[in-house]
């Protein structure tokens, strides 16, 4: 009886799952294994794949460009703390009962919504050294702006600044806003009675109370940052000038889809995966210790 009952439930259960499961198997699970297998081969898509063992991974360690683009990726991630502080600050300004606050929230979120090829083209034009708005604004202050995206020095900061504009009023600000609304008001009232100033209240109450959110945002930003930088650079700089804006994900794209080095690209992708995995593990392991209140 119990068995037949279970079967009756099991049948439809699998049916509901089937479409998703098949898709998941074919386009996610098997490809993950396939790319791992591929990383032990050399293959240009046309000839027969040639087994090379761990050679791709050994080559990767000696690949100067790999390290250089790894450095670029980390450099671009230096914007993460700035973006986070910006989002928290905005959320604190917005966490007040003011008329019309929704309008501001919509406006601040706008860049996040439309981020993509359209805004990358827009910023390419904004950064135009001769005719762009940014250098026109700098001229008011008597500064002749740099060549931004065409400059080895300024290309990375230019992308980081665009990233700030894109993200500062976006998801992270909304998360902070929700966190701030959950801080009990009597904590602040007690601090007022003790004569605490704003700065003290921030460090003693706000910062520790939102620390779980900060931790979540920081983690997700690191994971995103390690994999990031391809689309912007592809549209705005082509990875240049002289490779200054090529990140690991861009390098993977080049090996796989521009140069047909399928095996090497798969090895690179798995190294990236490993990095993301390590960060995720560290988070699980040490997450509890950073969060305190």
């Amino acid at each position, binding site marked *: 009886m119990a068995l037949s009952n279970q079967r009756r439930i099991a049948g439809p259960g*699998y049916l509901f*799952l089937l479409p998703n499961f098949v898709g998941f198997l074919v386009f996610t699970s098997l490809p993950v294994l396939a790319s791992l297998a591929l990383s032990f081969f050399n293959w240009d898509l046309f000839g027969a794949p040639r087994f090379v063992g761990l050679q791709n991974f050994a080559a990767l360690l000696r690949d100067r460009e790999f390290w250089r683009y790894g450095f670029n990726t980390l450099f671009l991630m230096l914007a993460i703390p700035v973006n986070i502080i910006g989002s928290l600050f905005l959320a604190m300004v917005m966490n007040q009962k003011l008329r019309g606050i929704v309008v501001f929230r919509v406006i601040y979120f706008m*860049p996040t919504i439309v981020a993509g090829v359209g805004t990358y083209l*827009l910023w390419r034009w904004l950064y135009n050294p001769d005719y762009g708005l940014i250098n026109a604004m700098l001229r008011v202050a008597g500064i002749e702006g740099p060549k931004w995206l065409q400059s080895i020095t300024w290309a990375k900061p230019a992308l980081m600044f665009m990233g700030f504009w894109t993200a500062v009023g976006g998801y992270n600000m909304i998360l902070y806003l929700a966190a701030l609304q959950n801080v009990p008001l009597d904590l602040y009232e007690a601090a007022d009675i003790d004569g605490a100033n704003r700065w003290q209240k921030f460090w003693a109450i706000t910062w520790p109370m939102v620390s779980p959110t900060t931790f979540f945002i920081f983690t997700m930003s690191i994971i995103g940052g390690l994999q990031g930088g391809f689309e912007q650079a592809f549209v705005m700089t082509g990875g240049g000038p002289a490779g200054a804006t090529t990140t690991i994900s861009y390098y993977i794209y080049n090996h796989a889809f521009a140069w047909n080095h399928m095996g090497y690209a798969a090895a690179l992708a798995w190294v990236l995966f490993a990095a993301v995995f390590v960060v995720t593990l560290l988070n699980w392991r040490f997450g509890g210790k950073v969060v305190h209140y």
Partner: protein
Amino acid sequence: MKKLLTYLALGFVGLFMLLPFIWMLSTSLKAAGDAFVSFDNPVKALVPREAHPENYAKVYDVTRNMGGGFARWYFNSVLVAVVVTLGQVTTSACAAYAFARLRFAGRDKLFLGYLGTMMIPGAVTMIPNFILMRKLGALDSYFALMVPTMFSAYGTFMLRQFFMGIPRDLEEAATIDGCGLFRIFTTIILPLSKPALATLTIFTFMGNWQSFYWPLIMVNRDSMKTLPLGLLSFMGLYSTQWTLLMAGSLMMILPMIIVFVLGQKWFINGIQLGAIKG
């Protein structure tokens, strides 16, 4: 006084957010030559000397010989985004129902597997998927653009969380009345999940509208491109026509802005639903 300062600060940040869009609109309306003036004054740079709304029609005209051009890319984008969104929401909802309510062997392990794949970088699966589509001869097809992207671990996860929160009493009553699982799913679970479904639909649609990496790899023919790819080829051919490029970009992002402004409540809910998981 304090209120005024707050509004000033909010307004200043708002201007920072909006200025690039104003510049986009202004450029898109300028005469071709007027875009290439070196300004020393942002106000002069931002206000077009004369308005040329025909730039918008021109985007369609000059791209027409690129496999149908902008009109075709728009059609492709709408088609792909709508079909993929419907597909993702449907497959996610069915799977989420199975994970949340039905008992079968290996259910929880499988769900953990789904969760685990959410942290795999796209580049890992992209390479074998490209090879698979190439082997099938499906590159440059709607099949390649749509079918592989119809399955979402994130959507399954989010809806499962929501379904778990629905009280079971209603379903039990329905079971006693002789309702099958499918009836329960369509008449009880789905109607009660409208907020979550609305949120997921909006998120998925927007994500697909902006999708770049996948179509970039799957299609090459101009007539198969979606808007982001089309715009990029357009830039490749007319790299100095900034008035037209900005008009095209604006037409591409406009549906996003409309969907967002209309659905912003669902959007904000969704962010909090997805991130602060129970």
